[in-house]
């Protein structure tokens, strides 16, 4: 199965993606991750204002089968969450890189961005 991996995003080996704009990171899970989880039935998002460390559990995605932790790709404060996921959690499956985004972080240390994978490196990881 070929996953969609947009070139303009950054990735983490644990299958989150991140885009940045004006010091704010938008985070979601990759097409590969949503396909692995299959039908997403609930997304538990972090509270606004919470400060997350890089690699800390940030959200929980529940598929029919199981609950999976979603990690913060970089450190930062939660400044927005995607409230549309409450009514329609399957947005994560249908539109993982756009309407299925999960939360936005105010990036604490831009230096951490250097550790993220680009699309080619993430594609190579998926094999």
């Amino acid at each position, binding site marked *: *199965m070929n996953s969609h991996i947009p070139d303009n995003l950054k990735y983490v080996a*644990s*299958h*989150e993606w991140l885009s940045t704009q004006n010091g704010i990171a938008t985070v979601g*899970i990759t097409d590969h*991750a949503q396909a*692995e*989880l*299959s*039908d997403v*039935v*609930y997304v*538990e998002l972090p509270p606004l204002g919470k400060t997350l460390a890089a690699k800390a559990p940030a959200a*929980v*995605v*529940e598929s*029919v*089968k*199981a*609950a*999976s*932790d*979603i990690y913060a790709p970089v450190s930062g404060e939660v400044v927005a969450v995607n409230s549309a996921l*409450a009514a329609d959690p399957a947005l994560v499956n249908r539109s993982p890189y756009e309407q299925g985004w999960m939360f936005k972080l105010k990036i604490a240390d831009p230096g951490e961005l250097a550790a993220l994978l680009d699309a080619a490196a993430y594609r190579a990881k998926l094999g």
Partner: protein
Amino acid sequence: MADRKTVPSLKKTPLTAAHQALGARLVEFGGWLMPVQYAGILQEHRAVRETAGVFDISHMGEFIISGPSAEAWLNAMLCNDIRAISPGHGQYTLLLNEAGGVLDDWYIYRLEDQTYLAVVNATETGKDFNWLQKKVASNVTLKNVSEEYAALALQGPQSEAILYKTFDKEIRRIRRNQIMTTPYQGQPVWVARTGYTGEDGYELFFPAELAEGLWQRLLTVGGVPAGLGARDTLRLEACYPLYGHELSETISPLEAGLGHFVSFDKPERFTGKDSLRRQKDAGLPRRLVAFEMTGLTAPPRARYAVLVDGQRVGEVTSGGVSPTLKKNLGLALIDHSHAKVGNRIDIEIRDQRRPALIVPKPFYNNLRK
């Protein structure tokens, strides 16, 4: 998100390659490599509720028990009364330990007067066989035919029509819990009208070399391939117990609400009887209840704590989202004093107490009598 683990040297069914060809996602289940889903759990669940699904259940174990003393011996080994079934009929029954805990839950069919087919859980097949082999009586033959047999479950409202299309020759109509044999390519196939989904349906047991052909045939005539994921959501809606969740060596059938399958009246002193009698006389410490979450929450999952007034009173044995009812629901084993329909309980989901309501069992059942 964590990556799936790959486990080496898993057992395969005769249909593993067929599942791969359909793009199934294969996962480890009790030492077996099994399809958890093909098109998706929700789609497969719906297919079983609305049309018919076909499940590979070849991982399940099969024993043949026969001989002049088989009836009396089985009645001493198992808690239901085997005398209640005549040839061509089956029953749900349980294999207990001396403490009244459950070693396994079975379906057993009386094929002929002195010959029985037991269908046992994949994960418990070896344990059951070792347990029984040590106790086998004279004039009883116990054979583990699990390796030679494959099995399919055809489940859903269109199962009967699909079954008739599957076999070229006309086959006899059977009722729930009945079993018959019919030939397929010159070899016998056992067809039982039973299942684990809350729908009408059949389970087919046959020599492993027929598996590929029968599987393709069932799909060609309208069966939808369905995996273990849908099997689990379907059985949870129907409140059927899953061994290792609602049943275990430390949970009694009485606690699990299966007293109907325990025959205290039969003459044989079956294994576990005295313990169950004592438990019954003393009052059951715990009961299995069905519950629904009352607010918008994450689905409850197995092993989450059940609380009343902040005190732990038990735990969830199975839980999830119900695709048919669009609710979060589950089964929980809780202290007897709280186990009443209509009682409010809390489920602890990631350190948060979430409200739930105890409701009647089952959540869903579409079986016609």
